């Protein structure tokens, strides 16, 4: 096998190695699944890592209740096809229990509220490792994240006291109450993920491809007008455009981009040419220069 000829394959080999380390070093790992392309890629990598055995850990979705319906349909289909175990925990429940308060106003989002639901679920199931699809190229605080990132009892990230990671060696030893966030595709870029999806012919939710959608413009960004969870002022005019989504987070904080990319190869070509970063369409990162770092310290994924 001549697997080291392309850099995508060397990233794939690295991710498979990391996933196997998780299965070997932890008692109760879980793969955090959002329905987005990064977590779909993770599932594909996990299938490859453990073949012909099944993936030896469940998937967990922290559902904000504000997901694109296409994503949920896709999630359920994928889980069924692969015969995986799926755990769903809802942000709505955390709100109903009074643990978190719904944000209000035009920039209201449930993105930040996910943290509480996630930490509660980790405690409920006693997960010691949570595998996530975060990438270092997404955002500059994430650029400093480790592959095995230790969190304390409160799920907090102590960015100044991170374990050094040398060579390929991953230290998964933790104390009682701690858990580890694992990022197997840390070293992938957005383009790498798309190239891999193309190479492997991985199915992804339809909202990643160009489609006609009722939208409105705000702050130079395009918002979906088809979903009532996205706050819209009456004066904000609804128009129909050909758009696609580059990330599929909480609908309330994920903007669309104008696009005519209807196939994976067109999407890859579009990203190659793009001059806007992926998170440029995520309003939650624009709240302040250090928005991501602050959220991560509090236990955000």
């Amino acid at each position: 096998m001549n697997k080291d000829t392309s850099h995508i394959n060397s990233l794939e080999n690295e991710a498979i190695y990391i996933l196997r380390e998780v299965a070997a070093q932890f008692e109760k790992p879980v793969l955090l699944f959002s329905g987005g392309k990064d977590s779909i890629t993770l599932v594909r990598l996990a299938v490859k890592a453990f073949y012909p055995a099944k993936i030896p850990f469940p998937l967990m979705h922290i559902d904000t209740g504000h997901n694109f319906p296409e994503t949920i349909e896709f999630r359920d289909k994928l889980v069924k096809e692969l015969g995986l175990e799926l755990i769903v925990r809802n942000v709505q429940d955390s709100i109903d229990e009074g643990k978190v308060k719904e944000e209000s106003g035009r920039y209201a989002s449930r993105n930040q509220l996910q943290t509480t639901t996630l930490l509660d679920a980790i405690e409920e199931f006693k997960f010691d490792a949570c595998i996530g699809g975060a990438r270092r190229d997404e955002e500059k605080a994430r650029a400093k994240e480790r592959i095995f990132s230790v969190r304390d009892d409160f799920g907090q990230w102590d960015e100044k006291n991170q374990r050094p990671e040398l060579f390929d060696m991953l230290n998964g030893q933790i104390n009682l109450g701690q858990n580890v966030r694992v990022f197997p595709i840390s070293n992938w870029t957005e383009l790498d993920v798309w190239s891999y999806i193309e190479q492997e012919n991985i199915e992804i939710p339809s909202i990643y491809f160009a489609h006609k959608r009722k939208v409105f413009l705000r702050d130079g960004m395009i918002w979906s007008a088809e979903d009532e969870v996205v706050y819209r002022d009456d004066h904000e005019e609804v128009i129909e455009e050909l758009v696609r989504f580059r990330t599929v987070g909480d609908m309330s904080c994920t903007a669309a981009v104008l696009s005519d990319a209807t196939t994976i190869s067109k999407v890859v070509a579009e990203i190659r040419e793009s001059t806007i970063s992926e998170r440029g369409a995520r309003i939650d990162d624009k709240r302040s220069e250090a928005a991501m770092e602050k959220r991560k310290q509090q236990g955000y994924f």
Partner: protein
Amino acid sequence: MEVIKIATAGSVDDGKSTLIGRILYDTKSLTTDKLEAIEKTSKQRGYDYLDFSLATDGLVAEREQGITIDVAHIYFSTAKKSYIIADTPGHVEYTRNMVTGASTSQASIILIDARKGVIEQTNRHFFINNLLRIKDVVVAINKMDLVDYSEDIYNKIKADFSELMSKRDYQDQKITFIPVSALKGDNVVNRSQRMPWYTGQSLLEHFEKLDKADIFNVGTPRFPVQYVIRPKTEDFHDFRGYAGKVYGGELSVGDDILVLPSKTRSKIKDIYFYDQKYQTASRRSSVTITLENDINVSRGDMIVKDGDLPTIDKEFTANVCWMDSKQLVPGAKYVVQHGINKVLGKVERINHKIHPDYSGIEKNVTELGVNDIASVTFKLNKPIFYDQFKNHRTNGSFILIDTQSNNTVGAGFIQ
């Protein structure tokens, strides 16, 4: 081509982050929104130039102090190659981060401020590059704009640095000198018009032309068994696959192998990557291997070619880079993680401390503090299967884990 990882080292204010920002800018890797954020902040601070360091210094404390305090990973690609830059801090107290960044890199950039020349920090950076046996090193003499692009100054620094080179023990390392101005963009991505006396390549051109053989070490194949795959399904009832990553060389179907530590002989039956069978498993591929005989193999065991044995021993001596504020003392016990294998180890003795500025060694040392580098002898509760670091980067290195805090407290390179 594999991804090339480049570690950067430089002292405070040598302009490391600016250099990386410049590379990103000139290769058009900075997206409009990131560029806008840099423009906005640069303007707010009253700079009359774009502060590219804002692109990489990701943590609040760093932006406040204007320094880099942790390893940041930066990604960019050209039509030819994909690059990862490990931007590591250059302060004395961050030696551990430098070692960390260099451990996964195949090439490195050492930055020197043209106004200051070779300083004590430069010695340290070069020492670490040597200790970790980085194959390709570029010495970028930066801030040439502030010394009138002087050839004399460049030559003087080159001569001073060459003196250091005579002291290194890894003589095969390739070293290239390039005069640059990160701020003005001279010889970073594009060749400079302002230094006609320099006829060499720009920094990026240098990396673009690197061949795989220039940067990757190839040696003896080692296959540490990471995970045993037993599906126990109808289709794969008797399947016993050994999952792991191949290090150092290749393994092929039919190879006569030994399983360590039992030294049981067998042959490689199949090599799987997902559902495909392959004849050969190449270096650094994560494959699943099946053997001809039904023998007992578990995680931590190692599959090697018959006749190509590593050292199997319960004792070894290594150069250790200590990374914890709690001292290392003789008699202390740590978990030694060698690749994926974990054993318990005891510090038998500290042989001597090595001054990372090439000023020699220090004997009769009773403890190691954070960022110290020393030769240490360990005794283990079980034998490990190692090669010398100089012959095998992966199988000759290990980390030390504190048995109480579970933190990674040191890294070692077996002698």
